């Protein structure tokens, strides 16, 4: 034993070790014991080091300015140890790091440095096992298992983690018995410097400990080591014993340690990571300080905050330190943060120490795990039961829609027969409002096809679509969620249940939103197809295209659903670190959407620049965020039931791991996008028309259902691996959420139509058809545009729609873009509402409007109630040329005293001015069929369709002169008495495109069928 001077230790020290050369060459290790005024434990430490079975171990005791020279004691305990005495002048120099860093200069030739506190007693094989593990795992820093000095069966720590704010956390519970439960070698965030083996070259590269990170210098060293690409591991086979922990820290120590921790964060995080961690860390510190103040520890609270503020006071120093650390960086924050714990380490430690005493915790934990396993096995049967029960409930809920009368509410109008539907699809002239030459939606063609498949039962076809949307959507959700857990159908059933019981579909029925219903049914299939298409499945591409086209033909915004899903996947990419899949999905969705657009050509092009109501929009509902989150867009969605779905969907955000967490995030991203689309437009432009929330929220419904399914999968799988804690409580939330949602749905199955009754306006006003007149007539519907039984446009604050020869049917839906001719109707209504005219009947007469029906509800005694428009109802009541025809609770029908038939003849010389001022005299209706009238003339044939040069009329083989009368409609001068043929000559190009689109439908459908079989055989 000898005392050496600084600067002369290395070669001599190692050379003397060589004197007893081992038989086997092992890497030299220098144990560094930093001590200051040591107690008796130093003797034990030195004795233990002396007893190490590692042959190439030298010991350097660094005396950090003890008042009494410890050399004699060291000599007695370990004669071969080297002692180096320091004389620190300041408090900073007296700290551990400056002392330990002397090893950088004092030690040469050693492969490893073994830092060992003077209160630590290594087992005889500890150093050897650490060195062996360092080589085996190619680790830069290795730590041993630490047990209690007095009770070696009690664990103290086995490697340490930190939270994102640098606060250490040990997973070891208080007084946890060492049963080798932590004896696996593993990466840890750091190992305490109390016993730490460090590769010497790494220690040099890191420039040793940071002297300014007092209290967390070991965390800092390991963090920097990890940034430099070195592994930090714990080798539990190597064991050291340690005396009792240091007493509670003084306020000064708290301040210094906090300052050091902040410095460490600033140094070690990347810029983005720092931006996230630092504010949250400060907020947590503030909370902790408040808690300290409330518990009477004011000085400690002050020290905590002073530490934060003090750390940030020396910006220049921080910047330099950060630059040095960042130069070491070889890996990004993500890899470093893998070993960090989520949340607050202090809070966790508090809960572990206070809320769960070890015995009870262990007992409960073990029992819970056992129960979870049992429950999981029992739950294998639950999905089947749940599926059967909910399926029955669904059938109960839609029984009257499927098997009884579907009321003609809003867009749930009666479908025309095969011929009428096909004629509407192929006709060059559309009959909505005052007519239009714009192409019709393919929905009429699809109607004709479905009618044909059902042998002409148009009513049944409509029932299938309306009543079947929910079961089909439910099945689709089941299919799309099936891969969530192959061993159990539970997650898929949960997804299907959560989707089926979502209020959005019931509200769609209640609102009469056929488009939203169709999208609800098809959305899961589109979603699943996008996922397959992203993996290169061409059949899936065709599926997306076909389904998008079908949905869009009923509700135009559906055309963008696939893109919306893909955008959601892309938006989630930053959170799931996977952009390739999302990019492929976006490309697939875009390609399929283009095909969908082609399928909807030429109709879809007429939507460009069209009025909002033609695009399938409706009045902006004044929905709050809560309404949107609970899908409360209509009658359904009140109470707690919808929260059940949200709660169930939120569970996997906490529970899921790995791939399931990825899909949870993707699902929630889609949900948030849909929520935003449903909520924002109404907020940004409350007086405008927006996509129907019922349709927009179909995507959110699917997303939350998927999340709920993932939650179930997580319960089956992820949760079984975890100890009892708050996550297990979430299982109850998941189950209860779904049960509550199902109960809410069950309560809504009473009517079999989700609140709709059997009555409707077309039935109530069927008497209009009982009064046929030559030339035909129109019915003007006025009221909130969302409740009218036809596609409505807007006049001022109210909506209006037209049907022909009575209440009409589905041919009054999907109106063509508003024309100037339609504008005359709107102008007349607005004039009346303003009180500018008391002769509304005369203004409407040229359009052949015989009846004006003002309705305030979607159906006579049920359905949604429209926004009040008392100005319009008052105005109608105060017209001089409207006669009250019928009054119901929710409607008033007037007869227009001045009406003119749609097809009529006026005597020669009759004044046909811009508007009908005086009572029409001498104008009589004309029978017309397929564009050919009875023999009329001479006079003027009034043809009340939107005026345009493509209208032609012939009589006796001669073309008649056409003019525009009343500012909106056609008139033909008839010189002789003869039948007149009137036709609309469409654009040849339009007709050609329309024919090509039909062939495209056939081609895509054929390709879809052709590609289906190989995919099925390949399996999913």
């Amino acid at each position, binding site marked *: 034993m000898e005392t050496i001077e600084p600067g002369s230790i290395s070669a001599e020290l190692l050379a003397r070790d060589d004197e007893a050369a081992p038989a086997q060459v092992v890497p030299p290790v220098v144990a560094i014991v930093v001590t200051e005024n040591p107690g008796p434990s130093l003797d034990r430490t030195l004795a233990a080091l002396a007893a190490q079975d590692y042959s190439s171990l030298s010991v350097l005791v660094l005396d950090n300015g003890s008042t009494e020279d410890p050399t004699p004691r060291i000599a007695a305990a370990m004669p071969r140890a080297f002692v180096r005495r320091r004389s620190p002048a300041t408090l900073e120099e007296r700290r551990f790091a400056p002392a330990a860093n002397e090893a950088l200069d004092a030690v040469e030739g050693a492969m490893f440095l073994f830092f060992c506190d003077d209160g630590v007693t290594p087992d005889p094989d500890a150093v050897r096992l650490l060195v062996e593990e360092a080589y085996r795992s190619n680790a830069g820093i290795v730590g041993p298992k630490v047990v209690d000095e007095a009770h070696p069966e009690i664990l103290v720590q086995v490697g340490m983690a930190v939270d994102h704010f640098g606060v250490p956390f040990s997973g070891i519970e208080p007084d946890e018995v060492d049963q080798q439960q932590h004896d696996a070698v593993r990466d840890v965030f750091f190992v305490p410097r109390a016993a730490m083996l460090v590769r010497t070259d790494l220690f040099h590269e890191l420039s040793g400990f940071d002297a300014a990170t007092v209290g967390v210098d070991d965390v800092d060293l390991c963090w920097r080591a990890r940034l430099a690409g070195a592994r930090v591991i714990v080798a539990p086979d190597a064991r050291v014993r340690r005396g009792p922990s240091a007493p509670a820290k003084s306020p000064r120590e708290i301040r210094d340690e906090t300052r050091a921790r902040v410095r460490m964060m600033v140094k070690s995080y990347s810029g983005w990571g720092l931006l*996230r961690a630092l504010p949250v860390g400060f907020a947590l510190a503030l909370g902790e300080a408040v808690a300290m103040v409330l518990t009477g520890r004011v000085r400690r609270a002050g020290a905590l905050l002073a530490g934060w503020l003090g750390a940030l006071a020396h910006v220049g120093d921080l910047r330099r330190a950060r630059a040095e650390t960042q130069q070491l960086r070889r890996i990004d924050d*993500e890899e470093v943060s*893998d070993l960090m714990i*989520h949340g607050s380490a202090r809070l966790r430690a508090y809960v572990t120490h206070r809320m769960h005493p070890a015995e009870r915790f262990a007992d409960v934990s073990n029992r819970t795990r056992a129960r979870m396993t049992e429950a999981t096995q029992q739950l294998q049967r639950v999905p089947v039961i749940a599926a059967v029960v909910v399926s029955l409930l669904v059938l109960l809920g839609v029984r009257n829609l499927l098997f009884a009368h579907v009321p003609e509410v809003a867009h749930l109008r009666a479908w025309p027969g095969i011929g009428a539907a096909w004629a509407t699809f192929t006709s060059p002239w559309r009959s909505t409002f005052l007519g239009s030459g714009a192409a019709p939606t393919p929905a009429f063609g699809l109607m004709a096809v479905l009618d044909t498949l059902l042998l002409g039962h148009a009513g049944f076809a409509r029932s299938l679509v309306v009543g079947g949307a929910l079961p089909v959507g439910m099945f689709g959700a089941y299919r799309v969620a099936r891969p969530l857990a192959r061993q159990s159908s539970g997650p898929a059933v949960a997804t299907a249940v959560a989707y089926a019981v979502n209020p959005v579909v019931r509200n769609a029925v209640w609102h009469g939103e056929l488009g939203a219903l169709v999208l609800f049914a098809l959305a899961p299939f589109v979603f699943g197809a996008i996922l397959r298409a992203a993996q290169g499945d061409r059949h899936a591409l065709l599926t997306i295209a076909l389904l998008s086209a079908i949905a869009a033909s009923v509700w135009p915004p559906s055309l963008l659903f696939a893109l919306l899903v893909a955008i959601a996947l892309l938006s*989630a990419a*930053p*959170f*799931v*670190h*996977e952009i390739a899949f999302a990019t492929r999905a976006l490309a697939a969705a875009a390609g399929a959407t283009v095909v969908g657009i082609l399928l909807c050509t030429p109709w879809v092009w007429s939507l460009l620049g069209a009025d909002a109501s033609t695009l399938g929009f409706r009045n902006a509902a*004044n929905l*709050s*965020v*809560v309404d*949107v*989150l609970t899908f409360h867009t209509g009658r359904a969605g009140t109470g707690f039931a919808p929260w059940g779905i949200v709660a169930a969907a939120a569970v996997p*955000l*906490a529970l899921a791991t*790995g*791939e399931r*967490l*990825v899909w949870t*995030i993707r699902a*929630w*991203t889609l949900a*948030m996008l849909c*929520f*935003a689309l449903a*909520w924002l437009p109404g*907020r940004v432009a*409350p*007086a405008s028309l927006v996509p129907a929330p019922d349709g927009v929220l179909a995507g959110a419904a699917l997303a939350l259902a998927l999340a709920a399914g993932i939650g179930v999968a997580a319960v089956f799988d992820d949760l079984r691996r975890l100890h009892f804690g708050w996550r297990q409580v979430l299982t109850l939330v998941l189950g209860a959420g779904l049960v509550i949602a199902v109960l809410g749905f069950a309560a809504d199955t009473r009517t079999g139509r989700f609140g709709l009754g059997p009555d409707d306006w077309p039935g109530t006003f069927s008497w209009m058809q009982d009064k046929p007149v030559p030339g035909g007539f129109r019915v003007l519907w006025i009221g909130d545009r969302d409740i009218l039984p036809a596609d409505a446009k807007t006049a*001022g*604050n109210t909506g209006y729609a037209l049907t022909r020869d009575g209440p009409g049917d589905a041919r009054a839906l999907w109106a063509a873009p508003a024309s100037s001719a339609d504008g005359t109707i709107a102008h007349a209504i*607005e*004039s009346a509402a*303003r009180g*500018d*005219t*008391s*002769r509304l009947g005369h203004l409407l007469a040229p359009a052949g409007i015989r009846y004006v029906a003002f309705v305030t509800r979607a159906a006579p005694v049920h359905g949604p109630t429209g926004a009040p428009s008392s100005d319009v109802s008052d105005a109608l*009541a*105060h*017209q*001089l040329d*409207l*006669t*009250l025809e019928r009054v119901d609770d929710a409607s008033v029908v*007037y007869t227009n005293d001045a009406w003119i038939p749609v097809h009529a003849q006026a005597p020669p010389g009759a004044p046909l001015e811009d508007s009908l*001022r*005086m*009572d029409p005299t001498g104008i009589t209706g004309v029978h017309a069929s397929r564009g050919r009238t009875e023999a009329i003339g001479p006079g003027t044939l009034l043809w009340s369709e939107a005026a345009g040069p493509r209208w032609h009329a012939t009589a006796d083989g001669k073309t008649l002169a056409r003019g525009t009368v009343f500012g909106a409609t056609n008139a033909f001068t008839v010189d002789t008495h003869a039948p007149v043929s009137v036709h609309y000559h469409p654009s040849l190009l339009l007709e050609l495109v329309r024919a090509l689109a039909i062939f495209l439908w056939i081609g895509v459908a054929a390709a879809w069928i052709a590609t289906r079989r190989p995919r099925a055989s390949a399996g999913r």
Partner: protein
Amino acid sequence: MTARRAPFVALVVALVVVGIVAGRAASKRDEHPAPAPDTTADTVWFCPGAPPQASTGDRVTIANTGTTAADVAITVLADKGPVVRQSLSVPASSVVTRARTSFGPAGALTVETFGGRVVVEEGFEARAAVDAGACASQSSTTWQFAAGSTAAGVQQWLVIDDPYATDAKVDVTMRTSSGVRRPEQLQGFDIARRSRALIPLHSIVPHQDRVAVQIDARVGRVVAAQTLVYSRSAPTAGIAMTVGSAETRDRWTFADGATFTSAQTWLAVANVGADDAQLTVQPIAANGAPTAPTILTLAQDDVEWLQVGNCRTGEGCVTVSDNVAFGLDVHSDRGVPIVAQTITHATTNNGQPGVATSFGTDAPAQTWLFARNRVDGERATTLAILNQLATPATVNVALAHGGTVDRPAALQAITVPGGRQLIVTVAGGRRPPATDAAIIVESSAPVSVERTVSGNGDFGRSPGVAVH
């Protein structure tokens, strides 16, 4: 693949919180801005008419003071039988006066006009019944009359017209000399669509010196007119027909009045508010002589007739110098709504016999229209112009008839000093005009104008139709 759970959950929570906060802020906005007002030249005039028992010499005048021809559609809501429709065209600057019977059977008229600038008046032209006043240009849910009486020899008829397609239901309240009366048969009184109701108030609340009438429509909108028939047994015979006032106000202005020994004007005022009203009646003499206002308190639901001029006692009388023309400004304090109407009785001695009532003018205007300037047996037609401003107003009067607009030199550049009333004679004298002309009054500053038409046995007074 690793996923960032915490940032994502934080993002979701943040979005929801931001949404809720923004939603609360946005919900405070006015979501339904009022539509911009629009105008149109087409108008509708409602002429409830007089009861058949008092419709001798009933005339309807349609004057087009515009520069383009007007199409006119006339609908007669016959008391008996179907609706009768007629149409005619009135050239620019022309007047059409026809006997009411020429349009169809007895009943209310609805006159719809297209183009031009049309004023429609209805009145009487009989020996003992002369009157003329504009028909109503709007319907309303409330109508008021202040001057009415069911004293001996006086018939008070109420005519309520529902020109629309829906039935109306009204309540009639009468404030009489003996208190408020709400006869049961006039509560929830039904008026069938496109018809009128004739209500003889003198039979329902007989022998009341003062009867102010209020009509409130529970359902629908109506038009109401009142006809007072002073029989020969009354001190002064004559007929006074007025369309009611569709509004209550706290200020009423009357341009015409005079304190001659042969004529007596009363100001009938009814307090229709929910509180007692303190009234200030300020005469504005034509000679500019300062006149002290008369201030009195009118209890809630009370109706008073204040004698204007010729005061023998100060109580209940508005003091005005003798033999002077005057206007009246009547207002109540604290905004208590009142209804005011003048009723003037004249003896035959000075050549202005009969009875006339007037609601005065609503608000001063620079242009006033009257459909006609004469009656059969014309004695004189005068315009009373009241300038309540401090500065003088220069007034030009034009007469439109037969497609031309005459501007008599004597009626041009008439100066009405500030705070004065002025009466000008438009027709009369030795050679009264044989045909009607519409009167167009144009002023350099807002004024109030009333017209008085005198025949041989009666006279009528009415405010003009203001063009704003």
